């Protein structure tokens, strides 16, 4: 039996039209694709319209790694098997250098494709980015617009004033003297 007949390949098309060919086992890490493939309703090329090529590359990297771990973990003395600590370190390295817009797209992609492990990595990353920051820092980081009226913002801050004391990024607007 040759290699090519043994491994069924699946083609995925990113939102910007790039086509990726991956082994079926890699695609099946994504629960959404697994369901489709099992129901055999996948066409020759599966278009994934919400994920751009660079993001899909990253997602596929993650899936490949998961396949590598799980395929070899059935055998004893597995050199690829990771301890909890190594797994953590790997996850951290994987998310290293991911900027906020990539992170957002990764979250959307892993949520949509239903890849729990990757989603958790993304959520952890976002949590670590938010921790210890003031609202304006968070807005700047994630490019979120402050859509409170001055009165609303004032009220939210007053409810738990202690959490905002010494906020260097907040200036009371002149309208709310």
């Amino acid at each position, binding site marked *: 039996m040759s290699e090519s007949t043994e491994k069924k390949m699946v083609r995925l098309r990113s*939102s910007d039209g790039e086509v990726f060919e991956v082994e079926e086992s890699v695609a099946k890490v994504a629960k*959404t694709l697994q369901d*489709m493939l099992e129901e055999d*309703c*996948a*066409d020759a090329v*599966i*278009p*994934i*319209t*919400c994920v751009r090529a660079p993001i899909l590359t990253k997602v596929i990297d993650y899936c490949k790694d998961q396949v590598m771990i799980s395929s070899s973990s059935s055998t004893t003395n597995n050199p690829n098997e990771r301890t909890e600590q190594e797994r953590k370190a790997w996850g*951290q390295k994987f998310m290293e250098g991911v900027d*906020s*817009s*990539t992170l*957002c*797209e990764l*979250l*959307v992609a892993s*949520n*949509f494709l239903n890849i729990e492990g990757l*989603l958790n990595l993304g*959520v*952890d990353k*976002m*949590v*670590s980015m*938010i*921790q*210890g*920051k*003031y*609202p304006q820092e*968070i*807005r700047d980081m*994630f*490019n*979120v*617009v*402050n*859509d*409170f009226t001055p009165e*609303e*913002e004032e009220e*939210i*801050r007053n*409810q*738990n*004033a*202690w*959490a*905002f*004391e*010494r906020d260097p990024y907040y200036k009371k607007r002149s309208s709310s003297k």
Partner: protein
Amino acid sequence: MTVGCSMMPDWLRLPEELVASIAIRLTLISDYIRFGAVCTLWNSIATKNRHRLPGHLPWLLLQPTTTSTNPLLSSLCTCKKNSTSTSTRRRRVCGAGTGGWLIAVDDSTAVVSLFNPFTGFEIPLPPLATATNSSSCYLWKAVLSISPPAEYSGFVVMALYGQPRSHKQRLLALLYSRPNSPNNNDFSWLSLDQTPRVHDHSDIIADIICYKGRFYAVDNRGRLFECDIYNHHHHHSPPRLRLAATHLHEFHQAPAPERKDNYIHGNKRYLVESIQGDLLQAVVLCNNNVNIIRRLISTHHAADQEAAAAAEIGIEVFKHVKGDEREEMGRWVCGADDDEAAAGVGEQILVLGLYASFAFSASKHFADRPAPCKGTWIYNGGFCYPADNSGIFTYTMVSRKLAFLMFFKQNVAPRLEFLLHAEP
């Protein structure tokens, strides 16, 4: 077939459930509150999902010292909603539960209340004096069995109290809430039968804890008592204290090799639940060398209390091992006796406080900072002092291997910042 969803990398288009799952993973309440102040969408998600917050770390408060009052503490104590009463200002926090609940007492009236500065809920509790038959008493510490829901039903509070300005005698009282009856006439403090304790005047209860839904007390000799609250609840017999572990020295006769003879266990002991879920007893080690203590007193020109604090040189931690059928009582093991206990310390940080002690994972909370070294202990409550007027408190502690400083930025608590110095 097309697999599709929206295209823009727009944070506001993340599914609401996903944003909620991010928000509830913020371990510190201050982070959660600030997250909710980012925009209207995230505010509504944060507000909607408050009830899903996991057992948060208790509030980390700094006790006001004689030289400075603590703005954070006063802002917490006065943030009670719908009230302009100045009497709230006099409340002293003396206990904390998970989910942001605090127990505070007004020392002038001994009125105790349960309040949550985060949600604004407040539950008045009956005055502690009803348990004592005397008009004045001092509440050392109170612990809460579970976080009461908004309609406050089914919680138990244990109080450690005594005579004002006297360390001599400390008593325990319990308070059971009656489910679904917010009328505070329905609950009263129940003084605890303390018969299993030897009534020796030198015995005092050093700390109390609610651990896995049960109440425990430790005395100044390290003996652990369990309070059988459910016995009372179900059979209406008075709650009793049961000895759950004898004092430490029976099991810890030989000093650890690196331990010098001039270290003794002080009276300060703290019960704390480790991140692995074990019950730990942390004992403050004191310098037993009379000359050193004399020198400390003379160099510090300070009150006894400060000199005593300066003599504190470290913390020793013991793990409680439950008794089995053979051995009815549990016992304490320490790192020297038990490898598992030593390994269990790992990378967690213990915060030992006057009104609440807790453990948290160093790597989880300080992922982006230099990780505190293995087996470090943070000890809060003995010798804290404001370094200057900048609101930064410095905590110092020397353990066997490490000396470290810990900075609390007063107004952004409960965030912690670390500076670690390994001892040469």
